């Protein structure tokens, strides 16, 4: 039996100076290595979704609509709308943040997320299993109930197994499901050069002095097992077709 896997944390190059691969490349590679579905989750943006939708149609790999929200208090949450109204609310949430932040910024608070949280699945992106993480997880569980999850990502850094073990314990304590993600930033190893370069541009340094600045724990999508994962993914909004169809109708009505 082949294990089924869907990658829930993929960053495309629509996250400026963070991702290094286009949606087309990501989906083509996912189809090649037999991944069922990809969730494009750009930073505070849904800009990549349209391209991803087209790539998904071409390759047959399902698209999961997602977004990574970096809140002002340092919390990162991956959100996935489960239906069309939830997608609208997510768009509205981003509009609020971008209006507040001005050009190229997005200022969102936890309260904003709560205001527009109906129908969103939220996955907390934790760092280490400390008190701050516990607090955030409890807050997430209180507000999202059974739509709250926590991402477990192998970073390939010392003490990683222990970190994931502790995070898992924490999630069990708060009865929050866990999902496996890989934090994909590019689709094939050769793209690491571009990734390193854009990271240096983001930090405003040259590659020679980069040294250990970039904490790249970056991998191509890989096979993992996770029961919760499939569960969460099933509930997510699959593809944009639904929304796109409605948008077409909307445009007609306007004219």
């Amino acid at each position, binding site marked *: 039996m082949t294990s089924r896997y869907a990658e829930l944390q993929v960053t495309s190059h629509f996250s400026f100076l963070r991702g290094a691969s286009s949606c087309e490349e990501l989906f083509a590679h996912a189809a090649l290595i037999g991944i069922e579905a990809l969730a494009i989750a750009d930073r505070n943006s849904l800009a990549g979704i349209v391209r991803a939708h087209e790539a998904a149609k071409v390759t047959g790999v399902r698209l999961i609509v997602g977004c990574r929200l970096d809140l002002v208090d340092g919390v990162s949450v991956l959100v996935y709308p489960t239906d069309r109204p939830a997608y609208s609310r997510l768009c509205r949430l981003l509009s609020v943040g971008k209006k507040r932040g001005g050009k190229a910024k997005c200022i969102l608070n936890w309260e904003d997320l709560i205001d527009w949280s109906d129908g969103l699945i939220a996955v907390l992106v934790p760092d280490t299993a400390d008190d701050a993480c516990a607090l955030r997880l409890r807050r997430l569980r209180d507000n999202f109930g059974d739509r709250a999850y926590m991402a477990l990502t192998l970073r*390939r*850094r*010392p*003490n*990683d*197994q*222990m970190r994931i073990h502790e995070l898992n314990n924490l999630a069990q304590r708060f009865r929050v499901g866990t999902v496996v993600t890989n934090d994909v930033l590019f689709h094939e*190893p*050769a793209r*690491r*050069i571009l990734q*390193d370069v854009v990271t240096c541009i983001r930090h405003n340094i040259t*590659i*020679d*002095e*980069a*040294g*250990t*600045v970039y904490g*790249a*724990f970056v991998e191509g999508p890989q096979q993992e097992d996770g029961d919760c994962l499939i569960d969460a993914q099933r509930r997510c909004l699959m593809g944009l077709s639904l929304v796109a169809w409605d948008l077409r109708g909307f445009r007609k009505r306007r004219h």
Partner: protein
Amino acid sequence: MSRVVSLYLPTWPTDRLRRKMAAFAPDPAMPLVLVGQTGQRREVVAANAAALKLGLRIGMPATRAQALVKELVIHQADPVADAEALERLAVWALRYSPIVTADDPDGLVIDATGASHLHGGEDAMLADVISRLEAVGITARAAMADTQGAAHALARFAARPALVVPAHESGERIRPLPIAALRLSADTVDDLRKLGLDRIADLLATPRAPLTLRFGPELGRRLDQATGQTGEPIEPVRTPDIVEAQQLFAEPIGAPETIARYIAKLTAKLCQELEGRGLGARRLDLLFGLVDNRVQAIRVGTAQPVRDVKQLTRLLCDKIQKVDPGFGIEMMRLAATAAEPFATRQTISSLVDEPEADVSGLIDILSNRVGETRLYRFAPVASDVPERSVQRVAAAATATGDGWPTHWPRPARLLAPPEAIQTVALLPDHPPVSFTWRGSRRRVRRADGPERVFGEWWKRDAELIAVRDYFQVEDDAGERFWIFRAGDGEDAGTGSHKWFLHGIFG
């Protein structure tokens, strides 16, 4: 009649660069150009022989040079450093004559009047200069004539590679040379050629007054300097003064105690001299002239400029046992062969703050005993690759400001190079179950990993997709090791998938 040597270094900037790059210098057969900024455009300001042969010219836009020659090596020009190096070369040329000067930007002038017989005659002297420069990779041409102007012109337009013009003949020999040989501005040369004056002979045959009226006094002056009508004094380079103190003995000395006593006296004298100039010694050479005309020397170096009599005396006295006085020492000369500015400082009042402990004295004593290269400190380098994350710096080097990474445990000892081990391990992400290192098999009790380290592609092309997966493992006896697998365990392109032991904890 004076005799002047003009030395012409046609490819000085590229030769200097090649010398500076030493082992990393490109192959001499490769075309190499130096590029500088002239106004808004980048143009070729120097080219080596190979580049000139391929048709590249000085003054050509850098982009065109790149378009013309496929494998062109391009470096940035540095005229200031070139001029400084030329000054140093002039100091070197003092071996031939006491009057030498740098002829910026591409030559030297040596006043060889009455000096050439010391080097076996005029021809032999020029041959010696050229071959010595050739030996260190500097192309040179030289001409000897009666005046600096004539020698300058002949070195650039007639010497292949050496030319000695007999006395009183240089006036005649420069007549067929082009007027560009006269050290005139490029505009003047252009204008003269428009008038149909191509050679120096044409210029000499033209009445002087209209020329002066049109081109100013410079033209006449250069012409007179070349033909010897007016003199041209040479401002010689000066060697940096060496502070030294000397002691002669009527009765040869030999006992270590006596030597030590005179070392103290000489050091005191030297320090007084240094103080007068505001200098501190970085390197001291003490020469002993022996009765049988042999010379013995001891040398000490310091990490920071020092002017303390006690400290310097101690450093020198530590080395007395290396001196063999033989039949006796007639002369002792102490010279500060390297000195640096050394300002006096106000010491911090102990009421306010404890003065910082100064370890430079200790560094000096140790490095003079065990050797300068054997005393060093480690400094961190920001790099993920373990063997590149450490560098050796001089013992007294100032801190770079980088801290040691503390967020992840690293072994105190790294093996260089990493040693191959045999393992039993599952791919892709599992630590080995056991490994064999230096013949003994160890069972892995606990392990942490993998920690992935990527190759630094900007340093070496070969590291483009190279990957190492590091594991921290503990064996039955509780010893901890840092081992890695070359490659990511899936793709063979990322490494050989062989295992190595790289470090030992504790």
